[in-house]
């Protein structure tokens, strides 16, 4: 499958698209946490880093096969999320955001001081395993999983928690366990994306996973459209490719990027594809009937 891509695309696009696919997987993970369940997670890059380092150390130091290391990296990220979730998920709103931001920085500093991660010198010599076809397949799998979750009992419970957690608890949802499951699951995808990242870039350094990267993921999700799968995909695509398009303006690149973010937020506060929901697109006729039914009945 990869040869097809190699023939039509030159490696520069492959590199950009592969990175884009990786960011989409991580952003969809964050969308499950912040978009569906409404929990502010400002430290997403830390779980991305746990996956990146976890998978890389397993393949480099212990000779694990790539796919096993990748899943192991995801599971390690989920484990980290559960450990951090216990204290953090008792808080809500901005306070949860601040605590997750804090834990994100603590994880970065821990990686900076660990021997096995190579500390400040970083970890290099990682084998090149990630290519565009693997990433596209994993993006589609992630999108399918997120879509399936969205329209399941589990997904509905998460959205109920976002809308009103006290009412959700009174309707028999164990809010704490569901928040923990959503957090661990979202971070699992960040871990997988991290594993793919380290086997694409082949050199990882803790400074790359600071809060700047966490905010980057947050921007993908919020700018794309909280809770909307197509929105998050479009948001990630726009914000990852903008720096490439803006290369032509060289020095002004990042300045325009910042201004672009402010501008896009103002014209679309709900995100590019705010309330667009895949489910409603597919079942247009069902919802159409509702529209004319409610107008007819003067509801």
């Amino acid at each position, binding site marked *: 499958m990869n040869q097809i891509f190699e023939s039509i*695309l*030159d*490696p*520069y*696009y*492959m*590199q*950009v*698209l592969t*990175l*884009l*696919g990786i960011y989409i997987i991580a952003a969809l993970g964050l969308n499950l946490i912040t978009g569906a369940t409404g929990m502010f997670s400002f430290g997403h890059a830390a779980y991305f880093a746990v996956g990146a380092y976890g998978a890389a150390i397993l393949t*480099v130091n212990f000779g694990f096969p790539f796919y096993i290391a990748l899943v192991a990296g995801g599971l390690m990220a989920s484990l980290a999320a559960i450990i951090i979730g216990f204290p953090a998920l008792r808080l809500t709103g901005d306070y949860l955001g601040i605590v997750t931001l804090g834990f994100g920085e603590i994880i970065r500093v821990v990686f*900076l*001081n660990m021997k096995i991660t190579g*500390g*400040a*010198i*970083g970890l*290099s*010599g990682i084998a*090149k395993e990630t290519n565009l076809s693997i990433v*596209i397949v994993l*993006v*589609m799998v992630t*999108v*399918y999983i997120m*879509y399936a979750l969205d329209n399941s009992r589990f997904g509905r419970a998460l959205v109920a928690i976002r809308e009103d957690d006290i009412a959700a608890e009174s309707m028999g949802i164990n809010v704490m366990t569901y928040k923990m499951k959503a957090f661990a699951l979202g971070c699992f995808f960040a871990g997988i994306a991290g594993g793919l*990242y380290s086997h*694409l*870039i*082949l*050199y*990882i*350094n*803790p*400074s*790359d996973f600071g809060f700047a990267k966490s905010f980057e993921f947050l921007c993908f999700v919020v700018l794309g459209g909280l809770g909307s799968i*197509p929105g998050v*995909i*479009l948001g990630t*695509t726009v914000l990852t*490719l903008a*720096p*490439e*398009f803006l*290369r*032509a303006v*060289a*020095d002004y*690149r*990042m300045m325009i990027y910042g201004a672009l973010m402010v501008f896009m937020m103002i014209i679309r506060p709900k995100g590019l594809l705010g309330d667009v929901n*895949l489910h409603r697109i*597919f079942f247009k006729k069902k919802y159409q009937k509702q529209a004319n039914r409610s107008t007819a009945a003067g509801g």
Partner: protein
Amino acid sequence: MKKKSILLAIVTILALTLVTVGCGGGGGEDTTSTDSNDEAAIKIGFLGATTGGHAYYGINTLAGMKMAADELNEAGGVIGKQIEIVEADHGSKLSEGATVAQKLIQRDKVNAIVGDPTTGITKIAAPIAEDNQVVQISAGAVGDYVVNTEDGKLREFVYRNTLLNAVAVPPVVKYLKDELGWNKVAVVTSMNNDYSVGLTKLFKEALNDAGVEIVADESIQDGDQNFSAQVTSIKPNNPDGIVFTGYYTEGGLFMKEVRKQGLDIDMVGGDGLLAETLWEMGGEAVNGSMVYCGFAADPTMAEGKTKAFIENYSTANDGALPDMFVAQGYDAVMMLADAMKAAESDDPVVFKEEIKKFEDWQGVSGTITIRDDHEPLKSPVYLLEVAEGDNGQQFKVKAVIPVK
């Protein structure tokens, strides 16, 4: 349910292909080069940052490259072709480093890349340059696993013209012990700085070999502004000098604290300290501080090529002196030109063989020999000292230590 998942897959593939088409148009040729981009030109790509934390090194390396390209083009170019510098900025971000390397090779079809001034991004670009058979010369990376891979394989297309710390540290330590009589030293490392962590390792080995005792081992962080705690704990051990392996901002502030707490000892460090910022931060406290590096612009002592280079640069930059990155950026382009002339070809696969044969190659930043492990043996080591000059503080060459 079946219909839904197919529709879903189509939406995702559609999104991705839409992107490739969009991306194709966007990538665009942006050679802000010295002259028109005719096909006949030899393209040399600049890999570095002009924004973000490492912008300072990038901007200077680029200046040196452009100076060399202009001189070569005025002298009729290389093997009949004009030299063209292709710029790109990765904003000091690791992930963008890989993207820029791919862009230079695939979109701009460069013959060679000069960059990155830092070890991290050089290591990211090296496998990409190696696989695509494009020569990469780093004008700043001093860490390990640049010219060779982690599993010991030598890279055919990746070289550098920097003074390696492993080459420079032993002669410097010998000089400190024999000439300046340092027998007890304090070592200060910036923990979140890979350059500093690596350099401390080398200094400790050289200090032990030379029999110099390490009486204090303190750590700081890049971006720290408050070193009162560390200096207070060094003071009671009264060392003869301080080995500071961090960057210039922290170095200057550290010396300010050392003088504030009444310690009358000097500091020695690597090229991380090499910038006016050292005395802008430290003021007179850094007078007497020593820095070894691969190049130092000292018009009074320089001769031949180096003298001309310094004069040309300072006339073109209203009196400013070129620093090591300008010189090594300049030398990198000149090395590429000489290799192409010797091989009479601008095909990296061909002229890379010539680079391996460099023996006492005379550059503006020193004489360079590429050893058989592809590492550069550069001589001499310039030991500089901060002193009050006519227009304020400047780096003065304290000693020129030949490297055996």
